[in-house]
């Protein structure tokens, strides 16, 4: 098991994005679809806040 893990991490096994797309052939078009579903959610603070500078351990 350990050996297998090591093999996966072997650098010679790493391929470029271009090669990977070639390898998956016809499925490559789904890559575009996956990219469209990738997004980032950003939540602002719920209220105005200061940097926490709290002396001690609570009230």
């Amino acid at each position, binding site marked *: 098991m350990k050996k297998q893990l090591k093999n996966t991490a072997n650098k010679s096994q790493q391929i470029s994005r271009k090669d990977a797309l070639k390898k998956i052939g016809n499925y490559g078009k789904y890559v*575009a679809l996956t990219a469209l579903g990738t997004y980032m959610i950003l939540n602002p603070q719920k209220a*105005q806040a*200061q940097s926490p500078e709290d*002396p001690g351990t609570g*009230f």
Partner: protein
Amino acid sequence: MKKYSNLLYKTIENKTIVWFENSNEYLVLENTTADILKRLSKGVSVKKIAEVLSKKLAVPIEKTIDFVLDLEKKLFIAKDFSDSEIINDYRDITLPKVFHFVKFYKVNNTIFKVSYLNEKELSYVHPKFDHLVVDQLNSFDYEFHVFINNNYIFLYVNKKFIGSWSSKEIHYFQGKFSMELIQKIHQKEEKDWMGVFHASAVSDGKKSIMFLGDSGNGKSTSLALLQANGFTCLADDFVPMDINKKEVYSFPASISIKKNSLKTLLPIYPELETTAEYNFTRLNKIVRYLKPNNTNFFEHLPCNELVFIKYEKDSDLIFEEISKIYAFQQLVPDSWLSPIQENAQIFLDWFASLTCYQLTYSNNDEMIKTVSRIFNTKYSI
């Protein structure tokens, strides 16, 4: 037709930022994805959208139908949550009769009387405003009360209940205190602000530049260095921006200086040697407070540049323009942004007009020169 939240769209660089009114969330999406959302919210059928997408990407229609349905579920249906906050009943709470610490602060010509029940309450607010203290007066313009009752800290302004916070939310209490103060100083209400940024703001008297960076990156130290070199400290840690003028407003709090910055700053600010030291054990932080050099707390100035600043030992000076999408991702989670739709639109428009930089330095003079350059070369209103 399904009822969707009101949305705002802004294309910046090669992405689209979408704002959701019901959650005050910002999403960074691919332009095509934002377009799908726009069509969904206009009531265009999933099938129609999927057909167009299927043609565009040369993907079977069943796949694009799945994709659009999934997107709709994730982005619209999941956001339809109701606020489940527990509302406490404060009717039984009355203002204590005796407050052990009473301070008078003068900001411009406005006098604030702030009464703290005990030393604990005092310690949460007072050190940052100590430099504004004046002798006890009989008349004042505004009265604040701060007291802890049943593990909650309460804030009253002019005897009116403003809010209460647990000890874990102390930074929100401090934020609200600052917000109430700034609103009284500038005669504005909460709806009049675009947001409050976790940054520091420096001015040359004509415009301002906002500095951002994670805690410990040298934001406050850079600010202290800049104010010793001809610039004015407009605000540290709490940078309010208004909606009408889209300008940074001055905030009178002190600059908090961490212990490891003392060596750099003591030659310039010998007064730091004797300033009281506050030990925030829970945060493993020892700080002293440095008075801002600003004397006109009415000041407000436009801001067209954001600078992500970082002190890195032995680093060469690195100064480059950075992606606005990257800057947006750093700015939003650390800021309070107005949840009002018109204000969110103004924020997005203002942000789109900015230029964002990264400045990494180890040599203070080089940093100061670079900041001067930003002030001088990119002058625009």
